[in-house]
């Protein structure tokens, strides 16, 4: 009697064991010599700008980004100026991702008909898995040239007088799905400055971040502190921008408030004249559209 129960129990057990363990064994066998892969962090920011300044993102390889940046006039100019809506500063830009780590771009600004061109290189890329890297690090360099009449016609002007340069180091980390932060030290060189008291080399320290409030909407902020004693002939302030990113398929809309009227690095880093507490705030938006120029090769069936 006891034996029979034991036999039944053994049969039941072994059947259960074999049917359940079979797939587990299979899974284990399948995953046995699985090479760990490098899991790169993607979409630290939704687009190549945090708000008005560069983020560590590049257009993906073979992709062209068309970026329209728009700043209205100051809100405190009142109803007569429709709270700034009658005044606009536009930058039209194109950016291209040559590889996953190298991109370049160019733009034209209505502000003094300034053309700017830049190169952005991704040195480090945040990843986990087979290679662990806590941060993404980009280097950025641009040159801007204004093409309206000379700023200082009474001086001896050379072609180089029109040029300004900006260099940035961007260090960013995506913390989980919703929070990304970036630190951005910047250096701006101006070949010509208004007075001898003004410095040609200007340093700022800034950064920004975003918090996702849904899969497609995030709140972004960006700040750049300008060190004192570098720009003295005009009263300049730290640049602060607060905005929202809205992503719809191939477009990203960035709607923001900022105290910087300028749209390229040299202007918003070193020539932010608005003061938030005075209401010198500009409403602005960026619209970006991604175009695939070179399609990745998908193997045919």
């Amino acid at each position, binding site marked *: 009697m006891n034996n029979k129960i034991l036999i039944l129990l*053994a049969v039941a057990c*072994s059947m259960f064991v074999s049917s359940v363990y079979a797939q587990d064994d299979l899974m284990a066998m*399948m995953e046995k010599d*699985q090479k760990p892969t490098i*899991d790169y962090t993607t979409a630290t920011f939704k687009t190549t700008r945090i708000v008005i300044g560069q983020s560590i993102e590049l257009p993906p390889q073979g992709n062209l980004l068309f970026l329209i940046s728009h700043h209205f006039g100051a809100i405190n100019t009142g109803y007569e100026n429709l709270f700034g809506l009658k005044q606009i500063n536009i930058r039209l830009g194109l950016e291209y991702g040559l590889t996953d780590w190298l991109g370049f771009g160019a733009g034209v600004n209505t502000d003094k008909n300034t053309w700017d061109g830049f190169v952005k290189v991704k040195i480090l890329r945040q990843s986990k898995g087979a290679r662990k890297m806590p941060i993404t690090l980009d280097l950025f360099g641009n040159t801007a040239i204004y093409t309206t009449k000379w700023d200082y016609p009474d001086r001896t002007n050379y072609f180089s007088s029109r040029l300004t340069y900006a260099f940035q180091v961007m260090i960013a980390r995506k913390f989980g799905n919703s929070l990304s932060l970036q630190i951005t030290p910047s250096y701006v060189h101006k070949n010509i400055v208004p007075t001898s008291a003004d410095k040609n080399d200007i340093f700022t320290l800034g950064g920004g971040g975003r918090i996702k409030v849904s*899969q497609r909407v995030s709140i972004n902020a960006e700040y750049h502190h300008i060190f004192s004693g570098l720009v003295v002939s005009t009263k300049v302030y730290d640049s602060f921008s607060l905005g929202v990113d809205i*992503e719809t*398929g191939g477009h990203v809309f960035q709607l923001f408030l900022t105290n910087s009227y300028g749209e390229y690095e040299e202007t918003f880093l070193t020539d932010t004249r608005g003061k938030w507490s005075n209401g010198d705030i500009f409403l602005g938006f960026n619209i970006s559209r991604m175009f*695939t120029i070179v399609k990745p090769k998908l193997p045919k069936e």
Partner: protein
Amino acid sequence: MRAYSILFILVFMTTVNAGAQKFITKTGHIKFYSASPLEKIEAHNRQVNSALDLATGGFVFKVLMKSFEFEKALMQEHFNENYVESDKYPSAAFVGKVTNIKDVNTEKDGVYDANIEGKLTMHGITKDIREKGTFEMKQGKLIGKAKFNLAVADYNIKIPGTVSNNISKTIEVTVDITLDKANM
């Protein structure tokens, strides 16, 4: 005493079962295809892991979501970031059985119908699925093929209204794997 010998035989048989012939691949192919009025979207994953146990019919799959390649980089980013949330749910897996595995004769080249059922886990949701496919025995390799539809809503993948004309509510999944005999 007799009980112990039967127990021993059963345990032994289970072990034998586990050692029976298995087929495996790490380079299987799964294609996602979404046909909507505005846009046709397809994605290919050529790093599909799969294994089949001929003795039990046990059949498993595992794919990394980030290994799906799209025609547009932005689609791939949105797929991982907004839809399947690859950081939270890095892989999808199927654990199931070929219920009529005895019909597949690996000794003879030919095409055999297969009934497959089991649990598919994707985006953190597990669903029972039951689909038909074929196994083709060809020069010592076993080629498995299946095509079926998945409703994205079943896996709690939300498609917002703004792109509902761009992304279909059901995704056609095509599986094409070539399994090799496993070296045990």
